[in-house]
């Protein structure tokens, strides 16, 4: 018995403290191919997976979190007025050498200037290559960045048009990746500027060797990577569109890690001794917005009553099929400044009725309830969630009529505030709380066409998030956002429903893999036990 115990202990310690091993080929099975490898032109997750492997940013998200840490810039200074950012570049960082680019080039300020300026400066030869820079516009960068200049070889100055603390988080996003100017120049000279969409020279942990469309991307380790060479020698992204087939590939060991399993297959995969699962809350929130401009939702007591009346735990259990977790705050728990001290409204129909009575609505009322027509990570089935809510609300005397439109009409109409209650959600862009709290709930966001679908105009909340937007100190910002979450809960413009849970099944011998809350897949620290 003792021997057995000892053996078990030894086994556990050997697994727990095993040193990472180098070597091997890691195969990642995913649902779709990249549409481009140019990080500034990509707009979809699949494309970002690949560009993240090849490129670096000035700053980056700490692996597995939304915190910002130095990357190609070792440090940065912000001027007192918050309008000037000076980035000090890491010295001696080399761009990849591949079979399509053989020059030996060191990263310099010119590369940073090129990578950013091509997205907004009409004089840059790449400004018109490959169409519009959609992500740059989507993040409103035209109204944030004034200019980017090289101060010297290792120093870059970015001036802003307005004070914007989340700017630093934007610099960690894929569109702000640093591409090689020398490579872009060479392509331009050959008249093949468009090739930046399918070839990539970056400074990242992996080099792109070959891309066979709709089939696979083959990367090799960047042995000179500034943050230590990757553990695996080769990395392959294999496109396997059918979720069940992808799971079969994992079971046979033909791939090592799979993206997005079918929810109903997760339990079976988990039961397989050869497979383990990594789980994390996604950077998103699904909610029911209560239009505060329309009666009776202008009354806080009614909004609170609706919060008490809906059984969220049941909804998440039944409809999210294990891939969701009840949400209490408007930001997901993986985001910095998440306030865990906030107490959620429990499921309490009696309290709901009492509040309605207090508001003079003891006989209930009639309302509409808009249901999203499309599945989203934060709400897999808008119709079913709406039906469950309808049943819960009926129990306290609220008669809700379900309304739905096609997706673009739905968004356009809700942006104009035509609804009383509507289901919606948000997937974060840059991992900054501002991207949720200011974007979705501030007074500025309630101007139509609004992103603040509750049309909620609260002075206290808005002043907190506005202040946080122009404060660069992270500790101070955290305090402000925590307070804002308390105000939000009390005023109840939404019923927060759920954050999705992302699951990545992988072979048991895979170590060091983390799911990034910002939706990236990073393989630099992943190793295969032999």
């Amino acid at each position: 018995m003792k021997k057995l115990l000892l053996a078990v202990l030894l086994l556990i310690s050997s697994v727990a403290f095993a040193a990472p091993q180098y070597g091997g080929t890691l195969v990642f099975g995913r649902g779709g191919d990249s549409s481009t490898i140019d990080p500034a032109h990509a707009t979809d997750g699949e494309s970002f997976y690949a560009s993240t492997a090849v490129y670096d940013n000035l700053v980056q998200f700490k692996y597995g979190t939304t915190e910002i840490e130095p990357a190609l810039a070792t440090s940065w200074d912000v001027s007192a007025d918050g309008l000037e950012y000076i980035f000090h570049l890491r010295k001696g960082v080399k761009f990849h050498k591949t079979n399509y680019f053989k020059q030996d080039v060191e990263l310099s300020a010119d590369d940073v200037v090129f990578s950013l300026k091509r997205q907004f400066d009409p004089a840059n030869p790449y400004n018109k290559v490959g169409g519009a820079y959609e992500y740059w516009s989507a993040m409103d960068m035209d109204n944030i960045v004034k200019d980017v200049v090289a101060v010297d070889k290792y120093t870059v100055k970015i001036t802003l048009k307005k004070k914007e603390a989340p700017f630093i988080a934007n610099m960690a996003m894929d569109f702000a990746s640093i591409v090689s100017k020398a490579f872009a120049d060479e392509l331009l000279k050959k008249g093949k500027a468009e090739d930046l969409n399918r070839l990539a020279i970056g400074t990242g942990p992996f080099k792109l060797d070959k891309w066979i469309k709709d089939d696979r991307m083959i990367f090799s380790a960047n042995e000179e990577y500034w943050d230590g060479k990757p553990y695996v020698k080769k990395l392959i992204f294999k496109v396997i569109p059918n979720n069940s087939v992808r799971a079969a590939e994992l079971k046979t060991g033909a791939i090592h890690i799979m993206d997005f399993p079918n929810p109903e297959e997760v339990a079976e995969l988990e039961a397989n001794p050869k497979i383990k699962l990594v789980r994390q809350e996604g950077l998103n929130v699904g909610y029911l917005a209560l239009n505060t401009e329309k009666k009776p939702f202008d009354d806080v007591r009614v909004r609170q009553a609706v919060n008490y009346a809906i059984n969220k735990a049941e909804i998440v259990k039944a409809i999210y099929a294990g891939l969701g977790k009840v949400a209490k705050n408007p930001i997901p728990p993986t985001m910095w400044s998440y306030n865990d001290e906030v107490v959620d409204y429990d499921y309490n129909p009696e309290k709901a009725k009492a509040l309605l009575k207090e508001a003079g609505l003891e006989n209930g009322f009639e309302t509409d309830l808009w249901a999203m027509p499309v599945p989203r990570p934060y709400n897999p089935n808008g119709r079913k969630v709406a039906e469950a809510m309808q049943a819960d609300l009926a129990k306290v005397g609220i008669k809700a009529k379900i309304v739905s439109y096609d997706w673009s009409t739905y968004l356009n109409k809700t942006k104009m505030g035509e609804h009383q209650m509507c289901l919606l959600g948000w997937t974060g862009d840059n991992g900054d709380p501002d991207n949720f709290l200011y974007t979705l709930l501030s007074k500025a966001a309630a101007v139509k066409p609004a992103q603040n679908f509750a049309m909620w105009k609260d002075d206290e909340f808005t002043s907190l998030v506005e202040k946080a937007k122009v404060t660069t100190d992270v500790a101070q910002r955290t305090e402000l956002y925590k307070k804002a979450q308390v105000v939000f809960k009390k005023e109840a413009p939404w019923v927060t429903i759920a954050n999705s849970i992302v699951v990545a099944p992988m072979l048991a011998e895979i170590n060091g893999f983390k799911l990034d809350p910002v939706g990236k897949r990073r393989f630099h620290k992943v190793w295969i036990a032999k």
Partner: protein
Amino acid sequence: MFSYIIKRLLWSVPTLFGVSLLVFFMVHLSPGDPAMTLLGDHASKEAVEKVREELGLNKPLYEQYITYIQKVLQGDLGNSIKTKQSVLQEFKERFPATVELAVVAMILAIIFGIGAGIISAIKRYSVFDYSAMFVALAGVSMPVFWLGLVLIYFFSVKLGILPVSGRLGYEFYVEDVTGFYLIDTLLANDIEAFWDALKHLIMPAIALGTIPMAIIARMTRASMIEVMKEDYIRTAKAKGCSHFSVVMIHALRNAMMPVITVIGLMLGTLFAGAILTETTFSWPGIGKWIVNAVYQRDFPIIQSATLIIATMFIAVNLIVDLLYALINPKIRLS
């Protein structure tokens, strides 16, 4: 013969024109906006408008159509909205995969379909006939994705003898010469890779070939039964020809006419990409590409790919008609 080909080619012009018109308006009038798919749910109205303008989607439809046709006539099939690459380039990258799969599937279907059809016809109402026709019926009615998953479950997950999906194992790498892996691996003199490519082909080819095989088998059987009743078969028998030569030479050649028509039509369809098979087996071909384009509202791909496929269809049909004359000299092309 030559004038016949010219005439047929001229006839294809209005057909292609009609196809382009139909697809263009179907694509543009159905709901869904490429600018919005491109920018995602978060995009502001101005950003969407800007992209629409850049893509030329804000102009009146007829104007967009005329621009499109003008470009096509100059040989420019446009660029994908999503990847910005030329549609023709994207097509070329994926077409060999589709053709390789379609040809192998078709060869399987022809060998087994015609074989089973002949035996069923001459051994009518035998056990073989009943079982072959039952299998053929099952083959026609079986959903391809389901058959694919069943094959994967047995041969890959349970028995572990065939790879689950894809065209080639990740340990192999072949230089693209023809784009057909069976040929490229041999050119590279890499026998191991050749076997691997062949193994990858087996299940998708079976899944894709089942329906054509079933149709060919039933068609061959019916047609053979008809032909075997003809006078010239009796004559051949009376002449003292062997049973084998009666069936294979006198009967089969005459019975093949309708079968060839069907094969031709099916080959055209298979070249257009087998959407379900390609998706199930992660086969990087045309079918999957077009479906993705539809999801993403990638108008240029949908329009131009349809045009390319329509052209191929017309070409395959023409070849089949020419084959008729070769097989049956009684038919004169005029």
